[in-house]
């Protein structure tokens, strides 16, 4: 066994051993999936990766025979898990001759499938990196400023780690319940135009759950489309459509880190867990280059100026102060193709219907998206006092200097 291979796996193993929470969590996850198996019939999300990591750990500890046995049973259960096959091949090779590198395939094979080999090495690195560099305990992605009780779950994708994080929204706040290896676009991230094979960055929502029977095998066990291009994307002239979270084809357990035409691709068992868990229309999906993990209290401090702006908008609308209300909208406001001037009559109607009754914002959520601009995606039920229900509204706000203003407003169907 030469140093290259050992060094690689030792690094992997040391990182994993020291990242005790990851190990503990993996174990817990397994337990949890077993207990939920009784409820859900099957739940083996994340299991294949946990077993692969166990093989790495044993290899790193020099327990080659145990590692080989575990790798063998892993590829028996997941024959299409290419990375596991590669590791199994290495462990078998190590019985016959010394290994020189991770994925020490014979020259002829390396020549024929060099690109695939490089991708498998990248996938291995990505999985290890995500498991070594865990989110600090008690932190959340900085975009999740406020979620309503109706957002029972939330999803954040960290493209730099090829990882998707699934959260449960509880009375005590957001809990990370699982995270999975994912693939993004062949050309990476920051989608601009149709066909650029990039994955969009931004705040999105799951818009539907496509029946797997209606899909080609290529999409695996299902698909959850998201609302790309969103209002901000369209405002910026971005094009393209059909960005989904979907599964993998029958011949691949997982795909390379950069593989899709822009979709976020998960292993089928992982996607199935997400499909069972999330809610169409209300589960947000934030896709970022790199997640900024922050403590929840710092998020609340950041949202203070926005909360004040939102409260002032609500007061203006409640009081029927139309000129004051108009000052909250940007000059380039656009709602379904209508400019502010074209949209004014509808707004005036709403104010007249309210007739000075205070309006309440029910189930308020707002997610912040900051790149060149600082924006907020806001969702709430607008309910005037004395009525039981009102329309569910979505607004996009943007910060202009110190002022937060609305550049889109519409009702959700």
């Amino acid at each position, binding site marked *: 066994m030469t140093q290259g291979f050992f060094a690689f796996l030792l690094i992997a193993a040391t990182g994993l051993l020291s990242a005790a929470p990851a190990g503990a969590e993996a174990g817990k996850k397994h337990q949890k999936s077993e207990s939920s198996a009784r409820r859900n019939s099957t739940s083996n999300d994340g299991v294949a990766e946990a077993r692969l990591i166990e093989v790495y750990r044993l290899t790193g500890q020099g327990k080659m025979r145990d590692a080989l046995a575990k790798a063998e049973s892993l590829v028996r259960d997941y024959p299409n898990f*290419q990375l596991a096959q*590669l590791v199994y*091949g290495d462990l078998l*090779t190590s019985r016959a*001759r010394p290994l020189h590198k991770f994925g020490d395939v014979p020259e002829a094979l390396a020549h024929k499938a060099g690109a695939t080999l490089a991708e*498998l090495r990248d996938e291995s690195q990505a999985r290890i990196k995500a498991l070594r560099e865990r989110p600090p305990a008690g932190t959340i992605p900085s975009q999740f400023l406020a979620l309503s009780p109706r957002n029972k779950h939330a999803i954040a994708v960290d493209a730099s780690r090829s990882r998707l994080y699934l959260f449960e929204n509880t009375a005590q706040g957001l809990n990370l319940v699982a995270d999975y290896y994912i693939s993004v676009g062949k050309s990476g991230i920051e989608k601009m135009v149709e066909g650029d094979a990039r994955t969009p960055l931004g705040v999105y929502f799951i818009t539907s759950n496509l029946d797997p029977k209606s899909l080609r095998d290529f999409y695996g066990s299902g698909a959850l489309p998201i609302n790309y291009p969103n209002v901000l994307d369209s405002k910026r002239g971005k094009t393209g459509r059909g960005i989904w979270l979907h599964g993998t084809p029958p011949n691949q357990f997982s795909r390379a880190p950069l593989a899709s035409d822009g979709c976020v691709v998960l292993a089928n068992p992982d996607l199935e867990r997400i499909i069972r868990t999330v809610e169409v229309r209300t589960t947000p999906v934030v896709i970022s280059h790199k997640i900024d993990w922050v403590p929840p209290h710092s998020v609340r401090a950041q949202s203070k100026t926005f909360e004040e702006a939102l409260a002032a908008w609500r007061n203006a609308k409640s009081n029927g102060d139309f000129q004051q209300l108009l000052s909250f909208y940007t000059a380039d406001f656009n709602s379904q193709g209508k400019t502010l001037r074209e949209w004014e009559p509808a707004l005036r109607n709403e104010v007249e219907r309210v007739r000075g009754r205070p309006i309440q914002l029910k189930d308020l959520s707002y997610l912040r998206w900051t790149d060149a601009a600082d924006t907020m995606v806001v969702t709430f039920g607008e309910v005037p006092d004395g009525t039981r229900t009102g329309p569910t509204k979505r607004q996009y706000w943007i910060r202009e200097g110190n002022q937060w203003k609305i550049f889109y407003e519409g009702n959700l169907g």
Partner: protein
Amino acid sequence: MKHGSAHITHLLRLAILAGSLSLTAVHADDYADVNQLMRTGKLAEAQAKVDQYLATKPRDPQMRFFKGVIQRETGKTNDAIGTFTRLTEDYPELPEPYNNLAVLYAGQGQYDKARAALEMAIRTNPSYSTAHENLGDVYAKLASQAYNKALQLDGSSTTAQPKLALIRELFDPNAKGQRPGAQPTPAPAAPAAPAAPAATPGKPPVVAAAPSAAPASPSPTAPPAAADSAAKDVEAAVRAWAKAWAAKDMTAYLGAYGKEFTPPGKQSRSSWENERRQRIVSKNNISLRLENLSVSVNGNKAVAKFRQDYKADALSVSSRKTLDLVKSGERWLIVRESTGT
């Protein structure tokens, strides 16, 4: 009437065979005859002779082994697998049937089964170099299959089937079954487990083996005379060990092994001892002859090499054996035992 005469001929043959049973030398001739017929490609005749022999001695491992080889040569792969499988069941201590089973499985593309059989062969005899070489080839083939799956290549046409070495004879004093030019067992590239140095039996013994206790390379601390008397002590220890084995004196037999002795495979000392006890005590009759015993001593370490003619009930095995011994107090104790070339 034809029926009757055939019956009589059969009886006669039986009588002749029965008469020959008392002469052990005749067995060797029978083996040699079959072997000769097989070598010259007269498989039908060889098979007839084997069948005839097995009719009276159905358990004879050597003839059953020939039978398996002939079945394989005549394309009856499944019959051959059956024959060798039953041999491994009846004689689990013999590595050769496992090896040939592996060759047959590999021929069918069942490399996982081939691997399991070869690992058993090596567990039975850690220094069995043919099995080691075959296993190396099987590992390489399995690795190549895994790599092809990893890279999503259609490997079926690109990689050749490994050519594994079939053992043609069970007890092969001249190691003809070994591949030509085969080196002593190559050590597996990655030690199986740190706790099992026995899995790397191919390494030359730590002590350089002098032709005998040759004064030509005297240890600087011990004058030739002392080395000579040490060699005598070692020889006595080895003969006492063989005597205890033949006498099924388990206390003396197991007592001949030092604390440092590493049992073959991944066995613990106690499970190895249990296994030895079962194997030895269950035999009715054991005879053990040591030939060409040579001893080399280096300080408090010694290596004894000899040919071991072992007979137990129907089984008769001649093999080369090497014992590594270490002096502990006044006694020489076995710390390593290896069979084969």
